[in-house]
C-alpha cells in the first residue's frame, strides 16, 4: 500500500510543481534561438512528448509480456492504460511537429526520419486500441492485444533503420534540428531535461489513474456477475 499512497497523494503535486518548473525553464531560462525565434520553444514540448510516447510504447510491450507470462489481469490493465495515454502523447508530437515545421521549413509535413517513425508508432498505437475496442469483450482479446503490443516493440529497430532510407530529407532539418547532442546552451539543455522528466512524470501519473479506474470497473463487473450467479 505504501507505493500506492505515494502515487495517489504525492504524485499529482509533484507533477504540478514539475510543470511549473518546466514552464519556467522553457520560457524564462532557455534563451531564444537565433534563427527560429520564439517558435523554437515548441521543441521542448515536442521532443519530451516524443520521449514519453516512446516510453509508453515500451511500457505497453513490457506489461504485455508480463501479462502473457504471469496471467495476472493487472498487467493487461497497465498495458491498456499505457497505450491510451501513450497515444495522446504521440498525437501531440504529430501535432506540434507540423506547427513547428510550417514557419521553419515552409511546409506542414516532411518525411523527416523522426517524424516518420513517430507516425508509424502512432499507427501501431491506434491499431492496438482499435483491436481492444472492436474485437469483442472476450478474455482472449487481452492476449491478442498483448501480442500486438509485443510485435510493435520488436519492430522498432527496423522502423528506425528503414525510415532513414526515405529519400528527400529537407536540408534545413540538419541545420535547425539541434538534436539532443547538439544543444550547446546549458539553459536549453536544462529546459529540455526538466520538461522531459515532467512529461514522464505526467505519463506515470496518468497511467496510474487510468489503471486504477480500469481495475475498479472490472472488479465491479466481476462482483456483479458473481452475485447474478448466486
Amino acid at each position, binding site marked *: 500500500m505504501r507505493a500506492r499512497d505515494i502515487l495517489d497523494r504525492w504524485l499529482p503535486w509533484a507533477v504540478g510543481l514539475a510543470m511549473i518548473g518546466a514552464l519556467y525553464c522553457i520560457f524564462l531560462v532557455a534563451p531564444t534561438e537565433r534563427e527560429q525565434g520564439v517558435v523554437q520553444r515548441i521543441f521542448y514540448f515536442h521532443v519530451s512528448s516524443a520521449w514519453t510516447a516512446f516510453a509508453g510504447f515500451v511500457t505497453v510491450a513490457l506489461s504485455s509480456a508480463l501479462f502473457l507470462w504471469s496471467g495476472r489481469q493487472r498487467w493487461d490493465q497497465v498495458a491498456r492504460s499505457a497505450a491510451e495515454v501513450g497515444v495522446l502523447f504521440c498525437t501531440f508530437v504529430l501535432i506540434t511537429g507540423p506547427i513547428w515545421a510550417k514557419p521553419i521549413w515552409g511546409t506542414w509535413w516532411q518525411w523527416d526520419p523522426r517524424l516518420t517513425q513517430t507516425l508509424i508508432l502512432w499507427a501501431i498505437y491506434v491499431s492496438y486500441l482499435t483491436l481492444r475496442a472492436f474485437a469483442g469483450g472476450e*478474455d482472449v482479446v487481452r492476449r491478442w492485444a498483448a501480442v500486438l503490443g509485443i510485435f510493435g516493440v520488436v519492430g522498432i529497430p527496423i522502423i528506425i533503420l528503414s525510415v532513414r532510407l526515405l529519400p528527400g530529407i529537407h536540408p534545413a532539418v540538419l541545420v535547425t534540428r539541434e538534436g539532443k547532442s547538439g544543444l550547446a546552451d546549458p539553459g536549453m539543455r536544462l529546459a529540455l531535461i526538466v520538461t522531459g522528466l515532467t512529461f514522464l512524470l505526467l505519463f506515470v501519473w496518468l497511467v496510474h489513474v487510468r489503471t486504477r479506474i480500469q481495475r475498479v470497473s472490472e472488479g465491479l*463487473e466481476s462482483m456483479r456477475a458473481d452475485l447474478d450467479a448466486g
Partner: protein
Amino acid sequence: MGVQVLKARSLVRRLGPTRVLAGLDLQVAAGEVVGVFGPNGAGKTTLVRVLATLLRPTAGDVSLFGEDAFGPDASRLRRRLGLVTHESFLYPDLTGTENLLFYARLYGVQNGNARADELIAWAGMEEHGRRQVRAYSRGMVQRLALARALIHAPDLLFLDEPFSGLDALATEAVEQVMGRLRSEGRAVLLTTHDIDRGLRITDRVYILNRGRVTWGSPGPADPDEFKDAYRRAVGAG
C-alpha cells in the same frame, strides 16, 4: 477399477466475469464409461473442453494419465485423447479417406493408410471414401467424425452430447464404440441430457449444474435415485 486416467480438482473456468465452472472435482478410471448429466448452460461443453486441454482452467488442476495436463508435455498427452463434439472437425473439401489420413499423420499413427481403410470400412463408407465430405449426408459425417476420433486408438475418449441429432445407425455406432473401448480397458467420458440412454450405458455418473458437481454415483446409477437427485439439483438452481 482400473488405473486413474483423469483427475480434475477444484476446476474453475471463467468467461469474462462469470464462472462457467465453479470449482468441481471429477475422476475417470481406465475401463470406465462415465456420464456427466446436466441441463443446458450447466457448463458441460466447457468442462469437456477444459478436460481435453483445449481451454486452460482459471484455477484448479487436471491430471491425465498421472501427469499435469497443462504442463510442458501436454502435446504428448493429447496423443492419447480423442474428442467428438457436435462439429465434425472434417475438412469439407477433402475426401473421407484424405481426412482420416490427415488425422492419422497428425497423431503419428504408424500404419496410417491401413488404419484409415479399416475405419472407413468400420463406418460402412467404403463406397464414399473417395468423395469429398462436402457431399456427405449428415449421418455419414457423424460416422466419419467418430472414425476420425478413433483412428489413433485413444485411451480416453470425450464425447460431448454424442446422441443429439444422430440417426439410428450413428447412435448404434456410438454405443458400440463405447462398449468396445470399455472392454479394451480404455475410458470414455460423455456428456448428455438424454437421461435414459445415458444411464443405460454408463458405469458411473455425475450431475453438473451451474458449474458444480451436485451429485456423483459411486457405481452404476439407480434410475430412480438419479432422477430424484437430478430434479433436486436442477430444480433448486
